[in-house]
Every structure is written in C-alpha cells, then in structure tokens.
C-alpha cells in the first residue's frame, strides 16, 4: 500500500508535465497578431474601408429595408454621419475598415484587445475562462466578443449588438457576427492579417452576409490619439466666455 503512493505521485507529476508542455505547445502554435495593422490592398485593387461604403445589394428583409431607407432619407440631404458626431463605427464596420485608419492588436492567451484608431474604438475578445456570462453582458455598437482557436485560425463570435441602421452592413440587435482571422503573405512578402466575416441576422437578412478584410502589418507602427469631442467643449467654453462678456 505504501509503495503505491510514490507510483501514483510519479504518474500525476508526469501527467502535469505533459499537460504543461501540451498547453505551451498549443499556445506556441497559435499565431501572434500583436501589432499595428493598416488596410491592405491587393496590387491593382482600389482602396477603401468597407465600413460604411457602397457595394452590391444585400439580402435584406423588407422590414430592414424600410428601416434603412427611412434612415437614409433622413441623413442623405445633409450628409450627416455618426462619425461626424464622434460616434464610433460599431461592428462590423469597425473591423471592416474603421474609416481607413489603422488598428492595434494586443494578444494574450485569455484576452485579445483590438483598438481602432478612429474614435479610439476598443473591442475585447475574451477566450477561455475570461468569457463573461451571457446575462452579464452589456449590449453596444461593438457588441460582446468571445474567441477560440481552431488551429492557426482565431474565431471570434460577436453578439449583444444594438440595432445599427447607420452602417453599410446594417443589422438588428439579433445579429451574430463570426470573424475568422489568419495570417498570410502579401504580394511583396509582407505579413497580412485576413479577416473573413459572416453575419447572420434573422430580422435583417434572409441569408448570411459575408465580407473579407485584409490588414498589412505596420513594422514598429504606432496609433495616434483620436480625441473627437473636444470641439463640443471648445464651443461650450466660447459660449461661457461670451456670456461672461455680456454677449449673446
């Protein structure tokens, strides 16, 4: 009986070592997306973000068409956009271009942070135990994102979105967006991050909507700060100064 304990401990230790190496190996296999990325255009292809731009007609439901047309009729005469009022693009526009501005990714095993320079939009992709329970998630323009690895591909599922008719890929709060990220080599041998997006939305679409976005790595790249609401504050100060000076 006493002899079994050392054997059991040895087995357990061996198992732990195996698990440790297996885990390290599994992480070592996953690509590192950390860095600054900017829109990659295939040689000869036109540029563009894809966030709010044009494109082929989408398989929209009639109800969704009505909502989008109502919105377009409202803003088309003036050309107003959410960005003009310092509102971030939201998903999927943020990942499909974010207005042509770069993005930065910070990758850890349990969480990936994506910062889009425009409007300093931030997405957090949670993996493994970091995932937030469904009832505790707060809906928003970029939603809530869970991630998992399928070999060298990062699969991100985004839900808990709010309805957004102000995007190229308008959607309801029932939308689910799946992104599949992997690395490729570009035409000049540069590192390219490819994001394949599929959005399903029973309220807005009769079929899945897909798009592909490619990002080129910016060696030693830096994001710039993007303050946007400063203008409001400057105007308010001018109002207060005018009031103090007895002006209207």
């Amino acid at each position, binding site marked *: 009986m006493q002899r079994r304990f050392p054997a059991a401990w040895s087995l357990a230790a061996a198992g732990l070592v195996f698990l440790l190496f297996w885990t390290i190996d599994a992480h070592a296999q996953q690509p590192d997306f950390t860095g600054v990325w900017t829109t990659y255009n295939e040689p000869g292809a036109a540029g563009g973000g894809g966030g709010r731009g044009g494109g082929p007609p989408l398989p929209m439901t009639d109800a969704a068409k009505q909502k989008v047309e109502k919105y377009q009729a409202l803003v088309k005469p003036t050309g107003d*956009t959410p*960005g003009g*009022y*310092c509102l971030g693009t939201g998903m999927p526009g943020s990942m499909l271009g974010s207005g042509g501005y770069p993005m930065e990714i910070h990758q850890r095993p349990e969480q990936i942070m994506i910062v889009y*320079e425009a409007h300093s939009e931030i997405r957090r992709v949670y993996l493994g135990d970091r995932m937030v329970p469904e009832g505790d998630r707060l809906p928003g323009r970029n939603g809530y994102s869970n991630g998992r690895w399928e070999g060298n591909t990062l699969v991100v599922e985004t839900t808990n979105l709010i309805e957004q008719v102000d995007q190229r890929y308008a959607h309801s709060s029932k939308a689910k967006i799946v992104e599949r990220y992997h690395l490729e080599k570009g035409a000049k041998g540069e590192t390219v991050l490819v994001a394949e997006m599929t959005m399903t939305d029973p309220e807005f679409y009769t079929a899945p909507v897909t798009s592909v976005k490619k990002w080129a790595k910016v060696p030693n790249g830096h994001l710039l700060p*993007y303050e946007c609401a*400063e203008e409001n504050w400057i105007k308010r100060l001018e109002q207060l100064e005018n009031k103090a000076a007895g002006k209207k």
Partner: protein
Amino acid sequence: MRFIVLVAAALVTGGASLAAHHSAIQFDFTNTKAVTGVVKKFIAINPHMQLVLHVKDEKGERDIEFEGHSTNNMYRAGYRDNMIKVGDTITVYIAPLKDGSDGGYVTAALTASGTRFGARSRAEVEQERLKAEGKK
C-alpha cells in the same frame, strides 16, 4: 492614391460634423482650388480641422471659414504641431463648395515656412512616378 484614401477616410469617419460645419456632400472633391490668406484661427481637431483665413482677392477683403481632414489624417500626411499659427500667411488647397460660395474642405496646405503637407497634386504624383522609374 493617398488623396483618395485620405478623402475616403474623412468621409467615412467624419463625413459631416457639428451644426457649424458644412456637410461633406457640399464639397466638390473633383476640383482643387488654392486660397492664400492670413490665419485668424486654426484648430487641429477631430473629426475635422478648423481654419479661418483673412483673404484679400478680387471679391474684396474678408474672413473665410474652412474645414479639413482630421488631425490624425493631417499628421500622417506630414502635419506636425505648431506648423500653422495665427498670423501666418499660408496657402490651402481646397475642395471648393459646390455652390461656389466661400470656403471649402482643406486637403493640403503650404505653411509660412514653405512646408507642404496633405494630398499631393497630380503633377507631384506624376513627378514621383517618373523619379521611381529613373526617368527624372
């Protein structure tokens, strides 16, 4: 191409700003016009820079209000802090308003020190292409 990207970025993220601003659809981005004047106000700000120039031309002497690219886009196109100050005489290259009135969307500028930033003209793009091909 840089011009196209900058304009696309500006339109997508900004498009139009607060009520005091013009809407992007009012600008004629197929045309470029140069305007020279003395800076009365300049704020490098997002989503659009703000500029007031005191201009003297055949229409007379007056202040003209402009807007332009975001600070971030201007930075990437060569702008750096304090390049433009109140009192400087500068030239801006603008997409004019479609209705022909004063003002426009600044796509490039020539500062008082002679530094140019912003979108390159077609002639400059062509010159760079020839240089890259070793023809000039």
